[in-house]
């Protein structure tokens, strides 16, 4: 559905994209993760045809976006990170305006507006000016405005930043529904749990390059990271804890805590507990640190996702 081929883009001599390539299948939910300044926005901007690359190409549904920008844009809905709406217009007026730009007829727009207003739980507030909405409600309309022309592809740039849990859950439900209906979605986020929950595949971008790509399982297995069991002991004899730590091939003792590293934490856990019992060390707390996207990201980029 989407093919990105060797995209390069520089700003004032600084290379923002250094020849990135990836492909997204029809109906796939693709997460594009990267720290600030990694090149996500530049990639999305080129994919949306509002920015021209220095070289490389973007193919949307078989069309080169550079030579067929109008037709390609018609297939795409974009949910920008900022609330890009007219606050002095009502939700209905906003939806009619944004939908109208994609050539949706008036009668169709009326029908579609009502559908998305119901979908996002804002039908009762449709005649209120958007500026009177809460942050979460604005986010919902911000997404709704990208769906009126029923795009085949949806680009969502941090669509849940700074919203209340209720709105977040509602947005999640809508996103899952759209995905189930077969929409191809490209999603950027800082929230790892969102990426883990939704994404079929994830591309990690840093310094203008895709440094890792695959399903969450593939990313985990490809990483050299081990999971960790951190055990805290009560009134334990220090020599006993040293002995216990030494028995484990990869562990680390710090005061009354031992961190046990294992490729499969599930199978390691029973050995750790029984070993502690045999040493007479009383366990007060067990914390399991599993390998997740956050740790993979950190190990790959050396940065927190929010850096």
């Amino acid at each position, binding site marked *: 559905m989407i093919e990105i081929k060797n995209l390069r883009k520089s700003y004032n001599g600084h290379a923002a994209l250094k020849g990135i390539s990836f492909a997204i299948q029809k109906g796939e939910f693709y997460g594009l993760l990267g720290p600030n300044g990694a090149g996500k926005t530049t990639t999305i901007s080129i994919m949306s045809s509002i920015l021209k690359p220095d070289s490389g190409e973007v193919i949307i549904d078989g069309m080169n976006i550079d030579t067929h920008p*109008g037709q390609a844009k018609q297939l795409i809905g974009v949910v920008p990170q900022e609330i890009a709406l007219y606050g002095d217009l009502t939700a209905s007026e906003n939806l009619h305006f944004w939908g109208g730009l994609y*050539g949706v007829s008036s009668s169709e727009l009326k029908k579609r507006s009502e559908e998305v207003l119901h979908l996002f739980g804002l039908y009762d507030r449709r005649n209120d000016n958007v500026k009177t909405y809460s942050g979460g409600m604005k986010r919902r309309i911000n997404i709704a405005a990208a769906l009126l022309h029923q795009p085949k592809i949806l680009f969502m740039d941090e669509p849940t930043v700074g919203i209340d849990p209720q709105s977040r859950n509602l947005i999640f439900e809508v996103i899952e529904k759209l995905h189930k209906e077969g929409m191809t979605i490209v999603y950027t986020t800082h929230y790892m749990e969102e990426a883990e929950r939704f994404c079929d595949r994830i591309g990690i971008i840093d310094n203008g390059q895709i440094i890792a790509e695959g399903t969450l399982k593939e990313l985990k297995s490809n990483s050299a990271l081990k999971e960790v069991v951190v055990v805290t002991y009560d009134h334990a004899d220090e020599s006993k804890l040293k002995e216990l730590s030494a028995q484990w091939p990869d562990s680390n003792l710090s005061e009354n805590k031992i961190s046990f590293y294992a490729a499969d934490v599930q199978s390691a856990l029973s050995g750790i507990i029984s070993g502690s019992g045999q040493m007479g060390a009383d366990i007060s707390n067990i914390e399991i640190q599993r390998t997740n996207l956050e740790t993979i990201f950190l190990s790959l980029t050396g940065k927190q996702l929010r850096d």
Partner: protein
Amino acid sequence: MIRLALKDLKLFLKDRRSMLMTFAIPIALISLFAFAFGGVGKGNEETKISMQISDLDNTTLSKDAVNIFTTLKNVDAKVVPIESAQDAIKKGKESNVLVIHKGFADSLADGGELPLELQYDEAKEIEVGLLQQSLIPKVATIPFSLGNPKAMMASRFEKMTENSSPELKENIQHQSDNLFETLSKGIAENSTTQDPSSAFFGNEVKMTKLVAAKKDNGLGLIQAVAGTAVMMLLFSVVGIGMSLLEEKQEGTLKRLLYAPMNPLKILFGKMISANIISIIQLIVMFLFAALVFGLEINNHITGLLITIIATAFACSAFGVFLASFAKTRQQVQGLSTLIILVMSAIGGSMIPIFFMPSLMQKAAVLSVNYWSIQGFFDILWRNLSIFSTTFLSRILVLVLIGVILNTLAVFMFRRNILKMS
């Protein structure tokens, strides 16, 4: 407390807009008004009032008189055929013409009343008043310079005393001779003194309003409405243009660019809305002036609408251009305030341009205000036809200003706004 004050001063010095509003704009306006009213920049050269002279008598004496008038201090006199001179006044290009009618030489010879007429545009009454101050004393010297003043005075006393007794006539004639000697002596000894003879001769210049105030519209009212409407329109179109930068700031511009349309349509949309709002604003201003102050517009609807549309086109182009030229809202606010105040001052929105020195009158053509206000004067004051070349030329200039600024706005929009989004 001092720390707080220092902090505020530091912030003030870093705020370019505040600096502009506090120093640059007042300095610019002070300079402008100093040029306009304070005589700054004139050096030793006096500002001259333009005077056309049409010699219909075309005699040696009338030509001598023309030569005398061309030596008038502070007056830039030129001889022009009467038709051209009147046409220039009607088109607002000149304020007056001094007509030397046929019989001028004969009147000088026989002591009759001099057939001189100053035809003028009432819209420029102040300028003509200043001209009169120089002209009347000079006219008073004409009989002394070119004619037979003694005979002229005698002739006039004869008329005054035709029903009197012979003794009284003789007595007056005697006094007349004494008076003539005194006047001649006075003129010869001190040519710069206000000429006492003007009490006798200068007032015979007939004053005729070639372009007179119509009963329906007052000059001041047109000036007030047109001048203020254009200035305020410029301020409001800048606001409309600035919405482009607001859209950029709030992300809606970027969202518009995601849509399947030519990005320039965004700018064209702004231009159309700015034009519509401008036209409505001007119509409301003139309707208000008609309803509340009695400005007569019923007989000038077509011309008024043409001028309104051309003005709206030029002014809205100015607003959109400024917004596409500047990179931030602060830049637009600072620049627009400066440019609009300067254009309004030199273009006649704040003060009628005939108050200004000739240099500034020439500079007035650089402002939108000038062409627009003159267009309104053509229709509402000079009562020119919408097909007259004078009126059409002003409309053409306004349209050209609009076309040029809109073209530049397209260029700047591509260069500044699209790249920044």
